C-alpha cells in the first residue's frame, strides 16, 4: 500500500480548474517533491488530499484511507503530519499552548527532540512571532506525533538560509527513519537536494513524474567555453546543442550529445578554458514550462 495513491483526481471551482486529472503515487519512505510555480495547483492538490475540499472527480487514498470518507480519513490523520502554506495560529496564545492543544489530540512523543532542532520561542505569544518562528512552530507540530506521512506545502518559506539548511538535513534524516514525505515547492535547488522523485505540475495537470536523476540526465550538461575564436555558429550546428549564448570570449550552451563529438569539434580551436557542469534545474524546467507558458498566460488574460 502506498502512503499516497491518486487516480484521475480533479477539482474545479466553477469554470476554474484547480487540478486536472492528477494520477501519481508516493512510495513508502520516499521524499516526493511536488513542483510548480505559484498557481499551478499544488495547494489545491494538497488540500484535496487532506479532505479540506471534496474532489470534483477521481479518487485518492492517503495511508489507505479514501479522502472522501471522513471516518477513514480521521483514523489516517492520527498518523499524518501537515504543514499548510498559509500557516496561522491564534495570536493571543503562546506557542507552547498551541503545541499542548495539538498534543492533546494527536500526541507529542517527539516534541522535545524537535524543539532542539527548530527553536521557536514557545513561551512567547504567537503575535510576537516572526514568519520564520511561526514556520518552525508549524514544522514542530507537523512532526511531533511521529507521523508515518508528512505533507508540507512550501515548508521552507519564511525560513532563513541557515534554518533552511537545517530543515533539509532534517528531512534527509527523517527519510532515513522511514517517514514518507510529500512536499510542494517552487524552489528547485531544495527539491533537488532532498527529493527522491518529483512530480511537475503545470496549470493543474501533472506534466512530469521523474526521479531526480533522470530529470538531471534529461537536461544534458551545461558547457562553457572560453576562446578568442568566433565559434558560435559552428557550435550551433552540432547535434545536441541547445540555447547557445555568448558573452565576451565565452560561449555557453546546453549539450545532450556525446563527449567525443564535442571534443573532436573543439580540437580545431584555441580553447582557453572549458567548464562542463550539471545544468541548473531551472534550465531543465524549460522542457516543461518553456516557450508555451507565455502564450498561455496571454490567452487566459484575453478570456478575462
Amino acid at each position, binding site marked *: 500500500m502506498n502512503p499516497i495513491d491518486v487516480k484521475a483526481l480533479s477539482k474545479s471551482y466553477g469554470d476554474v480548474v484547480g487540478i486536472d486529472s492528477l494520477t501519481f503515487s508516493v512510495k513508502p519512505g520516499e521524499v516526493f517533491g511536488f513542483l510548480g510555480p505559484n498557481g499551478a495547483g499544488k495547494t489545491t492538490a494538497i488540500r484535496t488530499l*487532506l479532505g*479540506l475540499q471534496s474532489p470534483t472527480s477521481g479518487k485518492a487514498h492517503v495511508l489507505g484511507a479514501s479522502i472522501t470518507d*471522513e471516518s477513514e480519513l480521521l483514523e489516517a490523520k492520527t498518523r499524518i503530519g501537515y504543514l499548510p502554506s498559509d500557516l496561522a495560529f491564534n495570536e493571543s496564545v503562546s506557542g507552547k499552548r498551541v503545541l499542548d492543544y495539538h498534543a492533546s489530540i494527536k500526541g507529542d512523543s517527539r516534541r522535545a527532540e524537535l524543539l532542539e532542532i527548530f527553536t521557536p520561542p514557545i513561551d512567547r505569544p504567537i503575535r510576537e512571532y516572526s514568519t520564520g518562528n511561526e514556520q518552525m512552530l*508549524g514544522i514542530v507540530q507537523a512532526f511531533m506525533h511521529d507521523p508515518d506521512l508528512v505533507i508540507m506545502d512550501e515548508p521552507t518559506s519564511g525560513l532563513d538560509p541557515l534554518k533552511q539548511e537545517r530543515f533539509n538535513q532534517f528531512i534527509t534524516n527523517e527519510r532515513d527513519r522511514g517517514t514518507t514525505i510529500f512536499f510542494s515547492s517552487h524552489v528547485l535547488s531544495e527539491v533537488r537536494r532532498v527529493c527522491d522523485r518529483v512530480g511537475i505540475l503545470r496549470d493543474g495537470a501533472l506534466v512530469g513524474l521523474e526521479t531526480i536523476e533522470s530529470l538531471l540526465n534529461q537536461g544534458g550538461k551545461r558547457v562553457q567555453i572560453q576562446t578568442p575564436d568566433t565559434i558560435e555558429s559552428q557550435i550551433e550546428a552540432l547535434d545536441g546543442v541547445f540555447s547557445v549564448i555568448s558573452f565576451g570570449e565565452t560561449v555557453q550552451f546546453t549539450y545532450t550529445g556525446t563527449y567525443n563529438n564535442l571534443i573532436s569539434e573543439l580540437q580545431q580551436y584555441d580553447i582557453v578554458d572549458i567548464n562542463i557542469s550539471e545544468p541548473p534545474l531551472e534550465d531543465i524546467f524549460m522542457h516543461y514550462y518553456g516557450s508555451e507558458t507565455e502564450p498561455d498566460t496571454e490567452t487566459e488574460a484575453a478570456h478575462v
Partner: protein
Amino acid sequence: MFETVQYEVQRRQRGTIALTVGIAAVAAFFVALFPSFSGSGIDIDQMLEAWPPALQEAFGIETLATIEGFLAVELYNFVWVIVLGLYFAYSAASVIADDIERDRMDLLLSLPVSRSQLLFEKVGSLLAPIVLINFGVAIAVYASILAIGESIALSRLVMVHLLSVPYLLACAAIGLILSVTVTRADVGKRLALAVIFVLYLLDSIAATVDGLGFVRYVSPTYYYNPTEVLVHGTYAIGDAAILLVMTTVLLGIARSIFVRRDI
C-alpha cells in the same frame, strides 16, 4: 474529547472574566440607583402608562416601582435580551468563519478530529462565558440588593438567569449558522448582529399589531421574558424547551452545512 473546548475556554478566559466583572458592575450600579428612583415621590408607573404600548412591550416595562420590575427593565430586558443576545450571536458567528478567514482552519482540520466535533466543541465553549456571566452577575445583583436594604425572591432571581441560558444558546446557534455559511468573518458577525436585532424588533412590534402576533414565534426573544419571571414569578419552562429545540435544529443545520463545505 473536549480538548478544543478546553483550549477555547482558556483562550477566552480573560475576556470572559472582564465581561463578567463589567456586567456585574453595571448591575450593581443599576441596583444602587433604585432607592433614589423609588424614593423620589413620583409615581413612575403612572407616567409609564402614558408611554406608547409598543415601547412598553419593547422594554418589558410593567412597573419600575419594585426592585423586580426595575431590574427586569433596566438590566434583564436590556443587558440580557439585547446586549448579551447580540454578544453571543456575534461570538458564535466568528468561531468558524474567523478560523477559515485567518487560515487557521487548515491546520485544525488536519488534526484527527471530525468536523462535527470541532464545530460543536467550538460553539460549546461559549457555554463557559454564558454560565460564568449568569453566575457572577446573579451574585452581584443579590448582594447589592441586600446592600441597599431591599429584598428579592431568590428563586425568581435564579430562574431569570437560568431561563436566559437557552435564550443565549439560541442566539449563539443563529450566529453559528452565519459562521458556517459566509466566506468573510466580518460579514457573518455583522449579519448576526443584524439578525438578532431584527428578530427583537419583530417580536416587539408584532406584539402590538393586530394580526401579526404569529410573527413573534420566530424570534428567540419571544421565549424569554424577564419581566414575567421577576415581576410575576411565572416560569415559562415550555418556552425554554422551545428555545432548546430551536438551538438543536439550528446546530444540526450548521453541522450539515459545515461537514459538506469546501474550506
